[in-house]
């Protein structure tokens, strides 16, 4: 937590603290929301909702948890509520499902279609959810293990292990014979 934010919170200047929290955390909140919701507009809405909740709850923040941990926990809860609203549940684990293909297509940005990139994104969708989150955040957070660990609230070793297994699996799946078999 930034010192200035801590000082404002300790002095009960919650509005001032919030003014500093927004630029400090909004992008990471958005990236975490995006990795969970896999949709840009929904992630942006969830980011707004998260920060509004932070604003409302800030007077009750007692500092026992790290501010970042607290904010990311609110983000995850907000996204989980959004995912529950989307029932019937879309399974991203089945790469052949229409929803999974649509989801893979939705995350592929850029005007030109790139079969290799699209195939890789489809393979990412086949990973377990925690590996997907770790992989997406790792590349959004400029390959920082520490940032991923902080945002996901996991020990550093767990994050390293998730990333290791995810990319090893992707390498296996990306081999031509494995793709044909898959």
């Amino acid at each position, binding site marked *: 937590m930034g010192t200035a934010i801590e000082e404002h919170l300790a002095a009960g200047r919650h509005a001032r603290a919030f003014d500093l929290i927004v630029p400090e955390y909004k992008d990471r909140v958005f990236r975490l929301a995006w990795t969970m919701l896999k949709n840009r507009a929904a992630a942006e809405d969830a980011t707004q909702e998260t920060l509004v909740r932070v604003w409302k709850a800030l007077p009750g923040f007692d500092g026992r948890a790290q501010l970042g941990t607290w904010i990311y926990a609110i983000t995850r809860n907000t996204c989980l509520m959004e995912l529950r609203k989307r029932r019937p549940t879309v399974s991203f684990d089945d790469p052949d499902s229409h929803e999974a293909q649509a989801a893979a297509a939705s995350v592929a940005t850029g005007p030109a279609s790139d079969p290799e990139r699209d195939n*890789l994104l489809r393979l990412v969708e086949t990973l377990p959810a925690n590996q997907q989150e770790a992989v997406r955040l790792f590349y959004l957070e400029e390959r920082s293990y520490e940032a991923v660990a902080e945002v996901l609230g996991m020990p550093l070793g767990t994050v390293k292990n998730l990333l290791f297994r995810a990319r090893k699996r992707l390498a296996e799946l990306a081999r031509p014979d494995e793709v044909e078999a898959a």
Partner: protein
Amino acid sequence: MNNSDLAYAGLGPCEEHEFELVELVDGALAAERVMAVQQHLEGCGRCRAFVHEMRAIDASLAGALPQVRLSADFDARLQERIAQLARAVPKEAARAAAEDEYRSILRELRRGLTWRAALNAASAGAVGAALAFGIGAVAPAALQSTAGLEPLAGPLGLYVAGIAVVGGLLAPRLLRRSPGLPMLG
């Protein structure tokens, strides 16, 4: 990957080094381990092939995963929502104060209601007593002439008093149960 390493592709790295090889690719391997792992790589085609695969996957993922950004008006929209909430907070406080005031007024009214109910009960009791007295005065003669009974003039005073007491006790309860203040006028 050179041609000799191609033969190792897909065989997988040495198990004891695979985790560190990924850290090496990520630039996160502890400095004191870098030299040892690189020395191992020089002599191990399987691990070199694995590092090559990891670098390719790393580059592909970095290029494929979209670098999402918040929209330009995100801050403005958030500020607007917060401003609305900030305006709503005083309104809520005012509403809470008004509700307190309303409850306080109700309490006062209930207190007033009790006194007024007592007065109403007293007057109802008086009316009841008068009616009972009137009936008591007429009924004995009528009953005597039709059934041959003795006049009730003796216990009449007790009847009147009983009706007045019962009326006085019941009337406040009935009035308290009634929801409307209008009956108080």
